């Protein structure tokens, strides 16, 4: 037996036009399947209508307020957690940046160390060159000065210097022996 469109008419809760209603009535008189469907759905719908709204346990609003407070605290705690994480990330970033900067500085220092070493090598070379020049000058002087005076002249000069030194030493000794001086 064909149950359509009767099943649809039974289960779509739309108003039937009189012809449809009559056709459905006629079908229901002969079709047990559709009769059972109609009774079952009627039973469900009736049960739904008789089943009232339910009250929550008393104090629902108070419990809601408590939950709201808890929620606020949860939001605050989560905000604090976020703040802590952000701080931690910022610190980690700062440390990383410092590390990179330090690394670059060390690298640059190595770079300038070689430069410094080169400068010092240059300076040392210059100094050694200067010393060498002075040595040469001294050698020239040693070789030329004796020829400036005759041997007698050198003897007179040596005597004058010796006498002067003797006078200087004696005057120091006399001063040291003067009374009133400890």
């Amino acid at each position, binding site marked *: 037996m064909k149950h359509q469109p009767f099943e649809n008419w039974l289960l779509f809760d739309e108003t039937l036009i009189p012809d449809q209603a009559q056709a459905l009535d006629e079908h229901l008189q002969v079709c047990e399947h559709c009769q059972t469907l109609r009774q*079952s759905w009627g*039973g469900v719908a009736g049960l*739904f209508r008789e089943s009232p709204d339910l009250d929550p*346990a008393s104090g629902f609003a108070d*419990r*809601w307020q408590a939950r709201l407070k808890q929620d606020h605290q949860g939001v605050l705690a989560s905000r604090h957690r976020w703040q802590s994480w952000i701080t931690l990330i910022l610190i980690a970033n700062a440390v990383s940046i410092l590390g990179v900067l330090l690394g670059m500085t060390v690298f640059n220092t190595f770079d300038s160390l070689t430069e410094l070493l080169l400068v010092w090598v240059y300076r040392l070379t210059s100094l050694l060159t200067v010393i060498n020049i002075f040595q040469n000058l001294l050698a020239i002087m040693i070789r030329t000065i004796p020829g400036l005076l005759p041997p007698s002249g050198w003897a007179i000069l040596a005597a004058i210097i010796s006498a002067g030194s003797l006078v200087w030493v004696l005057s120091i000794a006399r001063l040291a022996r003067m009374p009133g001086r400890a």
Partner: protein
Amino acid sequence: MNDNEAIWLARARAGDDDAFTHIVEAYQKPVFSLCYRMLGNAGDAEDAAQEAFLRAYRHLNRYDPNRSFATWLLSIASHYCIDRLRKKRLPSFSIDNEAHDWWQPPDPGPTPEAVMVMDEKQLRVRELLDVLAPKDRAAVVLHYWYDYSYEEIAESLALSESAVKSRLYRARRALAESWQTQESQMEMLEPNNAERTPYETPAF
């Protein structure tokens, strides 16, 4: 929406917790009932209703005062229950399951001290709704307990109107079949229950 409600909502929008508590008091019953129909036990229903109010309060700036607050609130509660059912994958009763003991009292849940006196009708409702998929269940609850039109259900559950119609059609068929199963099991268990009034109503 009455004037008081508009005032409470305006104050709640400005961050007044106490003002929203008035809203909670006014809507606790429909929201709790919806959650109870959806989740099937008082403990889960209490938790879901509390959460629905919390979400509504948190997102109050998204509510359009030109529309019904009740519809908006119940939509939040419906979506929350649907998500919860999907996540928890609560065991559904198969209508083919011979051993399904739908007359067992439900788990009242650990909190709060909800003492839910479950009569036979509530148990039958619960077991009937349990055969439906979460979104179909929400459509049925909104349609039969809250008198929502197809349009309102479509808006609340983010569905098209034709999708609502076909979901309700499918749900009615499943409910009718589940009812038949319950009836035959009751007949087997209680042969002399002739005094029980059958729910015979014309189709609607």
